[in-house]
């Protein structure tokens, strides 16, 4: 099967710091792929390179058989990669519903003239977008909060809203940066169910960064472990958890948190 995303020998330097060092990985379609590693290993940097916020110093990134290295963030989003952020980045002063609607601009295939004359096409698409946004909110369980201001939501809800916003792109691939951060065990468990469910419903591939090992174990089909920007291990969660290097560099004595 051709991978959805293939990263080939990517390197990224910040001044003297080599954050990613000749990193390669293939993400199989339909899978949930975990990316773990110590703090500062370069995980978020990889996300930023994939999504075009950063440009790799070296190497190529291929998505859906197209090379996307060095493309602009919005282009990459349009190709079908959605993401969430480690430090939540919502449109904070806008309502929950507006947050999702803003992410649907690609569905609005009308032009300025349509907008000015309120053409049937314009009406139809605007209607579709509202409906889509509502149903997305429904699927993440935020339909009851659609008029609330995003920044006033509890933390966990903000994370879900970010995910909903990413799904609004109809992505083939979703990148989740620590979705379970700040959640307790119960909430994490709920998140696992939630991600599985929406993944089934919307049929995308997931690449996620996570430090909660129970979430990783329960969710990921495959895990890549990163340290100092290099892969130190990969395999199923069970496999990597047993890997000595991983235990030494990442997990420490006690497994799972």
């Amino acid at each position, binding site marked *: 099967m051709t991978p959805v995303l293939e990263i080939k020998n990517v390197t990224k330097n910040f001044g003297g710091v080599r954050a990613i060092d000749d990193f390669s990985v293939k993400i199989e379609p339909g899978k949930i792929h975990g990316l773990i590693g110590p703090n500062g290993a370069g995980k978020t940097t990889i996300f930023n390179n994939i999504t075009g916020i950063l440009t790799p110093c070296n190497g190529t990134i291929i998505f859906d058989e197209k090379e996307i290295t060095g493309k602009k963030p919005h282009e990459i989003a349009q190709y079908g990669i959605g993401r969430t*952020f480690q430090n939540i980045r919502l449109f904070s002063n806008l309502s929950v519903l507006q947050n999702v609607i803003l992410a649907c601009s690609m569905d609005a295939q009308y032009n300025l003239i349509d907008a000015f004359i309120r053409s049937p096409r314009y009406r139809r698409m605007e209607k579709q977008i509202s409906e889509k946004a509502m149903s997305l909110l429904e699927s993440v369980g935020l339909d009851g909060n659609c008029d609330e201001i995003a920044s006033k939501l509890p933390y966990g809800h903000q994370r879900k809203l970010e995910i909903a916003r990413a799904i609004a792109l109809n992505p083939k691939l979703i990148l989740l940066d620590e979705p379970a951060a700040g959640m307790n065990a119960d909430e994490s468990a709920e998140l696992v169910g939630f991600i599985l469910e929406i993944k089934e419903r919307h049929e995308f591939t997931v690449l996620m960064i996570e430090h909660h090992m129970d979430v990783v174990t329960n969710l990921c089909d495959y895990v890549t472990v990163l340290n100092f920007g290099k892969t130190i291990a990969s395999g199923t969660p069970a496999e990597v958890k047993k890997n000595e290097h991983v235990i030494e560099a990442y997990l420490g004595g006690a497994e799972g948190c």
Partner: protein
Amino acid sequence: MFLQQLVNGISVGGIYALIASGYALIYSLLGFSNWAHGEVAMLGAYVALLFTASLQLPFIAAAIIGIGGAAIISFLNERLAYRRIRENKAPTMFLMIAAMGLSIVFQNGSMLLFGAKFQKFPPIMPVSSISIGSVHVGVLDLLTLAVAAVALIVLEIVITKTKFGLGIRAIASNTATAGLLGINTNKMFALVFAIAGALAGMAGVLLGLKYNVYPTMGNIGLKAFIASVFGGLGSVRGAIVGAIVIGVTEVMVSGYLSSGLRDLITFALLIIILLIKPSGLMGVSVEEKA
């Protein structure tokens, strides 16, 4: 001729620099352009003038009072206007708009109080210029440059080397957390505004000596604004370098090309430099990390 023009340019730049340094200081703290800064300089000049002309105080004493007055006015701006806006948690642009409002108030207020006339300090210098070869150098220009240089050095040291400076930078980066860590933000704001005001006052008195005192003399603050953007916002060193660069450019364009196109060319240069260095000559930008 070229040498003379260079001297002219540097001395024009010196005046811009003196205002720009206080301007940059406030920007470095609050991240907003204090458009009323030039007007504070103007008020400082009027205070000094009042004390020499009406009360017959010796010039130095009056100048010190003028500088103090400007510091107090600047402090009051912070206390009565900007602080309230900060407490409202309004975006920084509101501070900028308020500053514009204040500059209108000060300009027209001083017109009401002092009249729009040009007013003159009594002559304080026996000679106004000295000649080195065929080049004429203004004594006041030398003084201005010296004051600007001292201001630069002192501010640089204070901001980068002292605890006070660390506090300023911390507040600039994240006011709420700075408070949480024990930095008395209100006191710091007050102090910084007073210092910037004193710098403005100094500039005002020197400006007044050179170009007379009148209500719109603060308009030169616009040049200071441009200089500090040019040099990199928030960087005192950048502001001063930017000021000199602008002064020299203006004079050179006037001297060798056309005064009519002076501003056109200066601004074109500014835009070009910003396109090459998007945060000015010496500004640093910490890009947001996603």
